[in-house]
């Protein structure tokens, strides 16, 4: 997973989510990544190792804590949109407030 992927877009953001990359945020991130055809990878370091951002198991295994900088690179169809969408999700704190309401009502 560390071979070049024909990177066409990169980006990074700081994980502000209180619990770090735990189960629910990882599911949201990977499910969003899977809506793009582009190959998307995530890393805790710009030097890698780069991990498939569509793999729940692998992203969860990163155990990225609060305050970690998450790096993304993508190649293929809508690579830039993919990176922007994922970074936006993280910066929105994974929409956890809305999710909390849904859980409380449901």
């Amino acid at each position: 997973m560390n071979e070049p992927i024909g990177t066409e877009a990169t980006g990074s953001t700081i994980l502000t989510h209180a619990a770090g990359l735990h189960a629910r945020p990882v599911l949201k991130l990977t499910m969003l990544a899977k809506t793009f055809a582009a190959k998307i990878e995530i890393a805790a370091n710009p030097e890698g190792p780069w991990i498939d951002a569509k793999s729940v198991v692998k992203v969860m295994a990163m155990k990225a804590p609060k305050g970690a900088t998450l790096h993304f690179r993508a190649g293929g169809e809508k690579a830039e949109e993919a990176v922007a969408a994922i970074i936006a999700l993280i910066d929105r704190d994974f929409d956890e407030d809305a999710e909390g309401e849904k859980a409380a009502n449901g």
Partner: protein
Amino acid sequence: MSTNVGIVIVSHSPKVAEGAADMVRQMVGAEVPVAWTGGNPDGGLGTSVPAIIAAIDQAWSEAGVAVLVDLGGAETNSEMAVEMLDAARQPKVVICNAPIVEGAVIAAAEAASGAALDLVKKTAEELSPQ
């Protein structure tokens, strides 16, 4: 009817099965059909072939159904349930070799992306020790 692969959870305990299904619905969402079954007809721990068949019917999708099981009888009864389906439906039901709770959530997350049955199974099985 959903075009996404459906998920069936088969545990000896109805509480485990229902709880795992709750986790799928809350963490993944409603775009994946999910059904669960657990317990024997007398209300004790166990699994029942007719109940598993009913759960497969409930979660049915033309894309197929991935079944997550806990121990022993849950697996053999699920295999029996699959064998009792119409011949045309049998190849569209697979039993995943994965932990029941984590496997259900991760299989559903994969299914929600519209992934094919083989990929849903493979993703769930990434959780099992290689």
